[in-house]
């Protein structure tokens, strides 16, 4: 029995009640094998899967089996791992066209991580939300997706939601790799601790910056900007009062006794980072104009709706990084 936080419950389409049953089932290895065999896996590949799952992990084994059986998936991942800017486009196209739920789930997992890697937590949240709604309970990556979903929310920043999701992660996935569980615990502590209000304002400004970069200048972006201005006003009034009391003694007193660090410690939020952001940005910068245009044209032709927008934003972000 769990108590799902409201936002997370909405994502999972389950009631946010104390007696809501666990919406995640343990990875069903036999069902997975059966599905992949139906898609063409050989006996040797299946044997290797079982051996690798026993020796290493179900996640690593499932990943290898999918790459062995689905060449398009393997090619997309090879692009992503080789810092090829096409990787994200190939994954998004695969999600759009693949009828195979395991391929879709894993493609969404890697796509979300690719967005996180280029500092697009909002894009990552969208992709992980799709995974949690449509793809959970088919892959051994469920736990990792919940962890990265919480990490992405922390970077948006959606502090309360992030802390809630990460608490669920710790509770629901006791067998998740220790590096994720330890990072989740650290992040929760940071998200729940008192934060320097200026750091919080700066975090909000960071989110606004990303929204504007995506040309999202609508009501929500403007509301956040107004919120920042109002919060600054409150701090200014507090500080002016303190300055008066110290006979004009001047600055140095911090409002609300801030804690030492921002809540969004890179060490915790960047666990499992793909570490290819700089490489893929460099590769994008080295492409010829016509090559970049060809990739962008392909995204336009192959994708539609939100995925097209997310992938276009991704290439815009690479262009910005490459132009630095």
């Amino acid at each position: 029995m769990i108590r799902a936080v409201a936002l997370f419950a909405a994502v999972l389409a389950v009631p946010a009640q104390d007696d809501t049953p666990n919406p995640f089932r343990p990875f069903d290895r036999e069902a997975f094998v059966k599905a992949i065999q139906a898609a063409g896996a050989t006996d040797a590949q299946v044997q290797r899967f079982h051996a690798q799952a026993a020796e290493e992990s179900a996640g690593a084994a499932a990943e290898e089996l999918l790459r062995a059986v689905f060449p398009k998936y393997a090619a997309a991942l090879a692009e992503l791992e080789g810092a090829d800017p096409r990787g994200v486009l190939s994954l998004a196209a695969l999600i759009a066209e693949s009828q195979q739920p395991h391929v879709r789930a894993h493609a969404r997992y890697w796509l979300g991580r690719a967005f996180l890697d280029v500092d697009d937590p909002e894009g990552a949240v969208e992709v992980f939300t799709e995974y949690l709604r449509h793809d959970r309970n088919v892959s051994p990556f469920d736990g990792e997706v919940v962890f990265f979903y919480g990490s992405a929310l922390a970077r948006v920043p959606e502090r309360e939601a992030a802390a809630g999701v990460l608490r669920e992660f710790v509770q629901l996935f006791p067998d998740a790799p220790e590096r994720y569980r330890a990072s989740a615990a650290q992040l929760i502590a940071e998200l729940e601790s008192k934060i320097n209000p200026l750091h919080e304002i700066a975090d909000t400004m960071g989110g606004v910056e990303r929204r504007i970069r995506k040309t999202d200048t609508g009501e929500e972006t403007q509301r956040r900007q107004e919120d920042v201005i109002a919060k600054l006003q409150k701090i200014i009034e507090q500080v002016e009062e303190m300055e008066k009391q110290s006979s004009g003694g001047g600055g140095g007193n911090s409002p609300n006794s801030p804690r030492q660090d921002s809540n969004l410690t890179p060490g915790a939020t960047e666990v499992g980072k793909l570490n290819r952001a700089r490489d893929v940005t460099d590769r994008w910068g080295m492409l010829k104009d016509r090559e970049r245009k060809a990739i962008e044209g392909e995204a336009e032709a192959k994708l539609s709706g939100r995925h097209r927008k997310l992938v276009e934003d991704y290439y815009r972000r690479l262009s910005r990084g490459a132009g630095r």
Partner: protein
Amino acid sequence: MPLSAELKLIQKMQQIVAKATKEYDGRVPAERRTEADAKASAQALSRKQGKVEDLTRKLADKLNQNEEARGAGEPR
């Protein structure tokens, strides 16, 4: 510069960016935002927002350092 003056400067900069954001939103219809000049304007505007963010974060860090120094100087 007194802390209140630094904060007012940041607030003023944020007000300028907010005004420009509103202006952009009203001036550039959604269907035009994929065009190069609309994208470039948004990039320039986001850089300005990023600059205000940097200044805010630097001030927050400075305040934290002052706080720590004061804490270290207090008798135990």
